């Protein structure tokens, strides 16, 4: 059976190898790299670069038509509308106040979600790194929500948190007053943050756990022999050696948090009012869901959001290099 399979494969490799060797002779190593990159670059161009370019073009056109050819050129009008603000800290002073509400909601969400999630993921990773009973089971438990679709996550938590949901039923059973989790502005925002932390922390816990396991045990043993208190051990050994993983976690979580949409949209619909309307929802609503769509405005908003993501990615690259250099 083995011979039956390897013979044709060997023949195929030889057939493919002939033009490849010819190409390598002609172009050298650089040419080979270009050749192997070509399929990826083609796919990237078709599915990323061209849509990006078209999105940029859309952002300079107006009207409700979807075909670019049918859309009149309006220049920077959409950007002017989005950025026309007396005071950027007060959305109500802006011409498109919804956009700035969404920007500030997203900023608040990023700060709370990333902060809380990183902290919780780190604590969880430290606990899971210890010799606890049923370690594998607990690791699976914390990772399980990552496997769920964001829409499922949103629906599950909506059933739990709605007025007559499980959370309120439990509170009533305990003799407590039910809480309007999804119709109170504070609680709805807290729910969006909490649910997002619950849904994604497993992935980041795993990254931190890998980092913790890479720290040599003898460092801890030496610290223990010296009688170093646990907090000092954490501060002097764990944290510095975990820093590269922590940076990866922070930046990945940051980029993901900026793009928050699906689970929050299913959970709160952006409400109450606009308390949980984030940038991606603003783009979606403007471009697709509003009774009168404005694809150009949505495209302009998405370009501005992309700029924020580019800045965050550059920070990630800078921090990664810096962390790499320090090691």
């Amino acid at each position, binding site marked *: 059976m083995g011979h039956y399979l390897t013979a044709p494969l060997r023949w195929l490799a030889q057939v493919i190898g002939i033009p490849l060797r010819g190409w390598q002779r002609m172009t050298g190593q650089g040419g080979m790299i270009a050749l192997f990159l070509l399929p990826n670059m083609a796919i990237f161009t078709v599915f990323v670069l061209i849509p990006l370019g078209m999105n940029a073009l859309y952002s300079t*056109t*107006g*009207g*409700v*038509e*979807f*075909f670019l050819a049918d*859309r*009149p*050129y*309006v220049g920077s*009008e*959409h950007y002017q*509308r989005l950025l026309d603000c007396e005071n950027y800290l007060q959305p*109500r002073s802006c011409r498109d*106040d*919804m956009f700035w509400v969404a920007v500030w909601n997203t900023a608040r969400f990023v700060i709370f979600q990333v902060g809380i999630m990183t902290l919780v993921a780190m604590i969880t990773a430290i606990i899971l790194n210890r010799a606890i009973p049923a370690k594998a089971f607990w690791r699976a438990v914390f990772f399980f929500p990552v496997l769920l679709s964001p829409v499922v996550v949103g629906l599950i938590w909506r059933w739990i948190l709605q*007025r007559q949901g499980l959370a309120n039923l439990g509170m009533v059973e305990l003799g407590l007053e039910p809480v*309007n989790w*999804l*119709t109170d*502005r504070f609680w709805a925002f807290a729910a969006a943050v909490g649910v997002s932390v619950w849904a994604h922390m497993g992935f980041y816990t795993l990254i931190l756990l890998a980092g913790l396991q890479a720290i040599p045990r003898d460092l801890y043993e030496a610290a223990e022999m010296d009688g170093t208190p646990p907090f000092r051990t954490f501060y002097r050994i764990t944290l510095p050696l975990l820093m590269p993983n922590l940076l990866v976690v922070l930046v990945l979580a940051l980029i993901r948090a900026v793009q928050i949409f699906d689970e929050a949209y299913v959970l*709160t*619909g*952006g*409400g*109450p*009012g*606009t*308390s*949980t*309307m984030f940038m991606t*929802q603003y783009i979606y*609503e403007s471009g*697709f*869901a*509003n*009774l*009168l*769509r*404005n694809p*150009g*405005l949505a495209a302009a908003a998405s370009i501005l959001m992309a700029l924020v993501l580019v800045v965050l990615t550059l920070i990630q690259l800078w921090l990664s290099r810096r962390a790499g250099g320090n090691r």
Partner: protein
Amino acid sequence: MTKFLKIMATASSLAIAASAQAGEVRMMWYSDGVEGEVMQDLLNRFMEENPDITVTLDNVAYQVIMEQLPIQLAAGEGPDIARVTNLKEQAEHWLDLTPYVEDPAYWNENFGAQFDWMRPDDSEIIPGFMTQLTLVGGFANKTLFEQAGVEMPGEGATWDDWVAAATEVQESQQLVAAFVIDRSGHRITGPLLSSGAVLKGEDGKPAPLDEAAQAFITKLVDWTESGQHMKDVWVSAAGTTYRSGADEFINANIAMLYSGSWQIANLSTKIGDGFDWVAIGSPCGSAGCSGLPGGAALVANKNTQNPEDVGKVMDFLAREDIVKEFSERTLFLPAHKGVIEAGGLDFQTDDPQAKAALEKFVAATGELIPAANEIPAWRYANAVYGGMVNRISQAMAGEMPVEEIFPRIDADVAEQVNAAGSGQ
């Protein structure tokens, strides 16, 4: 290898051919109640009569009709036929059925009254037909009123009367809220017009919200803040997303629901003998007691590859006997002039409450004020609906005082109209 390539080539060519094969018609359909099953039944009968045509019914969520269909249509794709409520906004995409139906005069005679709702201004095309007429109106939980010992307001009762009575029931029966209006600009437009508001300016464009409109919106926000109007339905979404209050009524969490005639089958099926309910029409304002007419239409996509087959399907479904049967089985108000004039609709329900509700809504069509009749054919209606829902929800959620939302609504509507008109 050659065999594999041959199979692949055949499969590809079949797939390409299938996308535009003669005799195949796709219909995109959404359901509020049982009408999907009824439509499938009717289509099965059509296919028996016309074995050379296969009609595939794609049952989708209403949100797909609202959000995905417009994009498909704009891209020159989409189903051959679709059931749509956002008619005027997408008028440019509907096929003119005139050359494809057997008797255009029949269509004009029986469905012509609503053609302007779905075709471009000043156009003479036959764009499709209304599967049903709907009328916005209210329902009351009769059992809760009786248990509370509160008499239901009678003919000519105002919004204030109804809210006061429902609030008494709320307090007596410890309900979550007294009443709810669906989260929809369409739903609150009837009460606004009944209050004397003028939404359509003399130039045909949206007029700024006047005192009458502001007064009703202020009341609605006040009722929400005081817990009389159910907050959940309106503040559980941002933007223009539609939310129905029907489930709250079905679960007896409220004493009164303001929704529309299309809910009758839904209420009848889901409430069953859980409690007694009645249709109450539209509470009155200073200018009348009007709901808003509307409905869903079956329209053909002008990009269809099979207009002749589409014409045959539409001709079948528009037949007088078929429209009558569809209306009787779905408990919908028909839009067919001949069916209405002939009368004697035998709505197929054992539920006397549903029959009484249908009669009430038919009677309420006589109370429509002229301004309400103009709205379905007004191209800027959606701009007004969207602006109102979004901002009223903000005021209800306590994000801004109600006085602040009025200039915001005017600005939003103006911005939308401007953007839709000529690209900003």
